[in-house]
């Protein structure tokens, strides 16, 4: 039986086909999906903040873009992904939920998360093959490990990456 693996805020999970990995209600957070088509192993991390150096007290690397993405890679290797070059990355999220006060620097966290994820991927030589980021709508995503397709659902639409 295929299982649905749920990833909560600031969590990281990996799984193998025929399972699916799901994270619900992404706002300013970003869901980073990584998938290896050869082994059909994939993972997802739900990052909240861009930079772990901002943290005063945290023991959870999955919460930050700069530590969460490398951790995702490491977990995939542990699960049996051999060639990093084959890993496909897709990112979703980084919205500004409350658009009316976007001048408020605090709310720029969505945009800062997008930048941080992209930079970290570049440093790790990972190519982002598809993304649906920014805007002001919350999204839920499902990574299908049979195909590597990411289904993106918001209040009004459903589409695939």
């Amino acid at each position, binding site marked *: 039986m295929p299982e649905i693996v749920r990833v*909560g805020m600031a969590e990281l999970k990996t799984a193998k086909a025929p399972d699916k990995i799901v994270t619900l209600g992404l*706002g300013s957070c970003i869901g980073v999906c990584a998938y290896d088509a050869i082994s059909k192993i994939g993972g997802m991390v739900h990052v909240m903040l861009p930079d772990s150096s901002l943290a005063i007290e945290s023991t959870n690397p999955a919460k930050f873009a700069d530590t969460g993405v490398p951790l995702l890679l490491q977990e995939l290797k542990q699960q049996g992904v051999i060639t990093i070059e084959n890993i496909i990355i897709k990112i979703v999220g980084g919205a500004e939920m409350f658009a009316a006060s976007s001048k408020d620097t605090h709310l720029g966290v969505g945009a800062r998360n997008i930048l941080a994820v992209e930079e970290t991927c570049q440093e790790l030589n990972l190519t982002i093959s598809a993304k649906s980021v920014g805007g002001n709508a919350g999204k839920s995503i499902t990574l299908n490990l049979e195909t590597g397709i990411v289904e993106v659902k918001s209040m009004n639409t459903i589409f695939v990456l």
Partner: protein
Amino acid sequence: MFIMKDLGQSHFDVLKEIGNIGAGNAATALSQLISQKIEMTVPNVSIMPFGSVSDILGGAEREVAGVYLRVFGDAPSKIVFLFSVQEAYSLVDMILHCPAGTTQEFGDFEQSALKEIGNIMTGAYLHALTKLTGLHQLSSVPSFACDMVGAIMNTALTDLGMIGDYALLIETQFSLVEREINGHFFLVPDPGSLEIILGALGVGSSCQK
């Protein structure tokens, strides 16, 4: 800096009391605004892993109407009001003195009405908190979103991610007696603010737990 695991029972009690007095004032303000009797629950102070926050609100994908305000001043924090979509419609009907069932969407006007409710209730809440603690506090312009509850709470909780892996929520539910409207009111202190609030009330970190 205060971290969640240092919080003892006395701190919880104080936070509950803050929630109680603040939300009491806020509920009174709402009651006067719509001339209706309002009941509220004893506040719930909860600390939970980020991953489980949306579970208490009926699942991350549930569609809700939310009003969000930032609080500036001595102890910055965030305030979030959440209503189910239907209940938010009813609330707008009441504010605008329309028959029940009139409002069917969140246009500019309806959003504005809900934001104003958020504004007035926040003002009442902060006034009570200021009187109690002597801390100077001001709220931002309210913003509105109708979306997944998980996505809305994300925004309010991100800053807390910097000081730990747990969310601290001071939650009060209020309900209108005559019509079925249940609102959630959340106060989410910024990193560092918890210490200031508790300190102002004489239960700082040195207090016996």
